[in-house]
């Protein structure tokens, strides 16, 4: 108890300094948590677009981005005929722009696609989709920010389309996207005779390895990946994840430097007290443990505060209409654990030098210190 009290007493002596250190860790943790969670959510949503009602995805081998992938229509026909395939849906992805909205995701799909089938249609007739080349269906948010409704004509990119429906999905990308028929999208994006990907639903999940090997054998230029496998290996996702963690790590590094500064000042201003503890039998390990303990308390309180701030930020962002569907405030437990551990490690690393300094204090010299 006294050991713990020594730790807490030391932190309480310079409350402002301690609070600044806690705030440093807290804001670092909040930044890391927010950035990582938002990006994970965005990645999850993008992955959700690909894996809609499917177990696997087929795309062109070695492309850096799915927007550049070209899967020939012949492959769709062949793969659809394989006995283990329940259905194969070609999808064209594209980015278009409209006045005031530089990036709108565009989906070219068949009327049988799960996105069209499973979405909630707020306006329009599902059966009308794909009947005419200049018809489009808008996600609810896209309809809002484009300021159009059913029956209107909307300029998108270099063409003008007729809005025949508005649908709502839980996915932010889809909700802010434009859906057109596969043929119209192929023509619009100059991808005649091909699609970006084929999403595959198998009759049995156990056939996935057989399916992958058949794709490899029959289409050397294509690759089939299970959805989870794709999420792990897609280079864009890797870059996004690495960026998120790097940004968070930089924040924590700054927080760690704050802790180091606090602990160095704390040790320097109580050299005499450290000497007293030494004369009364405290070992180097006990003294070092005391300093590291102080840092651990700062880090843990900072991490807890940071988690709270981060969660509040995520929920606040979730309420912003423009971001609706893009933010998933659900924090993965693994992210939570990693963030707390990183904060703790950062704090302890920051206190390492002060702890070593305290351990090396020569009592007889320090007792002369006024």
């Amino acid at each position, binding site marked *: *108890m*006294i*050991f713990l*009290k*020594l730790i807490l*007493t030391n932190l*309480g*002596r310079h409350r402002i300094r301690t609070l600044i250190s806690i705030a440093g860790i807290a804001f670092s943790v909040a930044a890391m948590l927010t950035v990582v969670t938002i990006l994970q959510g965005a990645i999850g949503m993008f992955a959700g677009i690909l894996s809609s009602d499917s177990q696997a995805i087929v795309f062109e081998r070695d492309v850096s981005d799915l927007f550049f992938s070209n899967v020939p229509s012949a492959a769709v026909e062949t793969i659809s005929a394989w006995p283990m395939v329940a259905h194969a849906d070609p999808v064209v992805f594209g980015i278009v722009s409209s006045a005031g909205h530089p990036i709108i995701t565009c989906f070219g799909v068949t009327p049988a696609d799960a996105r069209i089938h499973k979405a909630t249609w707020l306006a329009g007739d599902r059966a009308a989709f794909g009947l005419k080349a200049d018809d489009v269906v808008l996600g609810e948010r896209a309809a809002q920010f484009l300021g159009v409704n059913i029956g209107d004509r909307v300029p998108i990119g270099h063409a003008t389309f007729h809005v025949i429906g508005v649908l709502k999905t839980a996915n932010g990308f889809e909700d802010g996207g434009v859906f057109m028929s596969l043929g119209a999208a192929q023509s619009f994006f100059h991808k005649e005779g091909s699609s970006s990907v084929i999403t595959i639903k198998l009759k049995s999940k156990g056939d996935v390895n057989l399916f992958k090997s058949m794709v490899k054998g029959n289409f050397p230029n294509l690759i089939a990946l299970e959805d989870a496998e794709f999420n792990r290996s897609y280079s864009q996702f890797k870059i996004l994840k690495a960026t998120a963690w790097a940004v968070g790590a930089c924040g924590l590094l700054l927080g760690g430097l704050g802790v180091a500064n606090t602990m160095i000042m704390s040790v320097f201003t109580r050299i*005499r*007290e450290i000497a*007293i*503890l*030494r*004369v*009364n*039998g*405290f*070992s180097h390990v*006990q003294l070092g443990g005391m300093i590291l303990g102080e840092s651990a308390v700062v880090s843990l309180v900072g991490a807890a505060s940071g988690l709270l701030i981060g969660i509040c930020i995520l929920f606040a962002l979730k309420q912003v209409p423009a971001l609706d569907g893009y933010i998933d405030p659900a924090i993965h437990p693994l992210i939570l654990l990693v963030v707390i551990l990183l904060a703790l490690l950062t704090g302890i690393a920051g206190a390492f030098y002060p702890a070593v300094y305290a351990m090396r204090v020569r*009592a*007889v010299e320090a*007792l002369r210190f006024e």
Partner: protein
Amino acid sequence: MNTPIFTKHRDVVLRAENLWKSYDHGTIAVLKGVDLEVRAGQAVALCGPSGCGKSTLLHLFAGLDESDKGRVIVNGVEVNPQRNLLRLLRYEVGFVFQLHNLIPDLTLAENCLIPTVAAGIDRHTAQARLRELTERTGLSHRLNQRIQKLSGGERQRTALCRALMNRPGILLADEPTGSLDEQTSASVFALLLELVASEGVTLLMATHDRKLAERCDQLVEMHDGRIHELALSQ
């Protein structure tokens, strides 16, 4: 392993053999070949002018400093700060300073319990010892007071309790009453002698106060880093 030496002088608990100590790379010589023996249960006063080496000698006996030359033997074991300092400070030697050197943000009780925390003594035993010592020193009603609220005499009595918490056989006191007024100094010193006698502790005390020194069993006169005279008190 430390092996006891001087088996023929079993009752010698503190022994300095030809101790030399200097500071600033040898430019300030503080101890110049000190030889001293203190026997178990004795109360020995080290007297001498400021800078004669009294405190340095005490620091060497407590293992807080290292000599340039010579040996320090405590309870028959040569003091080696790298090997046996913790055992020495936790169980064998208690130290009282001129300035009480208590931790101001802790209470009287918490300050006294520090040596028990360091030594890992169980809470029950530590509390019992705390009660015993604070009752004997008249501090039992001040246990939860912060140090800032204690008088000078109470602070020094607290320091005395802290030094004796782990039942050391030896008490080293460096001008323990040097910062107190005459009256308080006399009462604290009386308490010190009483505790030392009742606990069977050996006392080696540095002091300027010749009146107090003469109340010890032995008076050792130091001058210019050397021991000049050993005299039995009356």
